[in-house]
């Protein structure tokens, strides 16, 4: 059995922290948001562009982020970016709600995260279950997700269904 510390810093998290996905600042975007983790002052700036899918419904298009933070926050933003890139806006928001639930779990995996129920987009996100045991770190893991949720919601509200 691994210790709580090992569960917190799973290899997958350390890897994402070292080589974060979607880090950057794209030129073209609908919305940019800036979120701060008030407990530590760390920040993330996230840009997103929505695209219409075949039916015209909005889908998360290009998404990049920059900012500084601990390994948990960097890894989580990285995992988040991969999870939501290319998915419909509604699904991105639902994934964000799922992740929040994981963080509120106090380390007991909620049913929707067990192997039988897991949304495959959250496959890497499950690695963060260990964070839920450390209340002070939950905000770290949520930082990127909160920024994404905010940005996507803003973009969806300002971009008409038929993407212009």
């Amino acid at each position, binding site marked *: 059995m691994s210790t709580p510390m090992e569960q917190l810093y799973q290899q997958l998290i350390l890897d994402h922290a070292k080589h974060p996905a979607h880090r950057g600042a794209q030129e073209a975007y609908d919305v940019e948001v800036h979120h701060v983790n008030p*407990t530590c002052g760390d920040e993330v700036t996230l840009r997103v562009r929505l695209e219409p899918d075949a039916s015209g419904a909005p889908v998360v298009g290009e998404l990049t982020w920059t900012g500084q933070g601990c390994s948990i926050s960097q890894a989580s933003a990285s995992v988040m970016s991969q999870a939501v890139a290319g998915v419909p806006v509604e699904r991105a928001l639902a994934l964000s709600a799922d992740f929040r639930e994981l963080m509120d779990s106090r380390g007991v995996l909620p049913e929707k995260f067990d192997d039988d129920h897991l949304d495959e987009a959250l496959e890497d996100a499950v690695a963060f279950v260990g964070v839920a045991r*450390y209340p*002070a770190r939950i905000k770290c893991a949520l930082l990127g997700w909160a920024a994404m949720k905010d940005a996507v919601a803003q973009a969806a509200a300002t971009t008409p269904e038929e993407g212009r």
Partner: protein
Amino acid sequence: MTDTLDRTGPADEHDVAPRTLGPAELAAVRADFPLLTRTVRDGRPLVYLDSGATSQKPEVVLDAEQDFYAQRNAAVHRGAHQLAEEATEAFETARHQVASFVGVADDELVWTSNATAGLNLVAYAMSNATLGRGGDAARRFALAPGDEIVVTEAEHHANLVPWQELAARTGATLRWLGVDDDGRIRADELATVVTDRTKVLAFTHASNVTGAITDVAPFVARAREVGALTVLDACQSVPHLPVDLPALGVDFAAFSGHKMLGPTGVGALYGRRELLEAMPPVTTGGSMVEVVTMESTTYAPPPRRFEAGTQMVSQAVGMGAAATYLAELGMDAVAAHERHLSGLLLDAVASVPGVRVIGPTENVDRLATVSFVVDGVHAHDVGQVLDDAGVAVRVGHHCAQPLHRRFGVAATARASAAVYTTDEEIAVFREALAGVRAFFGVGD
């Protein structure tokens, strides 16, 4: 005078009779309060009838604080270590205990050092808004000459002087509702005194002098009609009555831990969420900010925006334990017991010649707080004689000079009970009071 003795039933006949405290239960309650066993003045058993000033504390409150210091003391909302996590958890659990005790959401409850600080917080937020702090969102709190602040003649200085000062800082005008001969706030004056110019209506839920309980509904209704904010001084109600602040409909309410069986050094301010969100901060410093540069600062959302610096963590934990203790007794039972005591106090005072009550003499809509004057004997001399019999009452103006002036007296003696007060204690009080005039050679 009244036939209120032993009246423990509901004021409203349609209510189910609330549970009161039986003798065994009361004995168990008393056993929880270490101080109640002490003696004063050469071995007399203490009869503590000064709970209106500050209540005594049950062991669970002392233990909660002791346990916090001995087991999980650390700075909250800061630091990654386990103690800090545990301290934060204890602090926020306490917030939940106190918030749910008065029926509000956790993030609508701001810790303050006492009720006075809570009332001042609202007054200073308004003057900061007047000076442009908090920007457009805070403009609804701004005051200008011509605007009016309405208080009442029944207020404790804590709910009067901050508004006088706010008026002086902003150029607004202070007006007030009078009190009737029973000491009740004249709700009939609401229609004329509270007008479109009124921006704030600040009033007490229960008077610490007369014990009169305010019927809040007409105040809130009138304030809503004219768009004024309501600020309730809930210092004397929360410890003694079931209080559901959202049901009362007030915008803000302040109360203190030390009057509700909790520690000194802690109180709480309730504010409706949307108001707290729009309000500029007052005390500034660590833990209530977001981004700080040398030039400027952005602020955290409420309640943290109003909690600057290291908080009274241990005291919050103690206040949470006190709220839980009261909730477990049941505030209906507490109120029923105290209504019984109120009847006994009124009868005791009525039975002694030359004693006059300041406040309602009928045991209806009042606390077990009875202020009185003894003909020909100054209140302080009354208190001294009672003290010699082991009976602790408060004497003076009880931080309500205007109310005393309204009744033409400079000082009163006040007997105020709490959940741990017994019938026997009130009998001792009565007997001591009966000897006062003879001691000073007045009366017949």
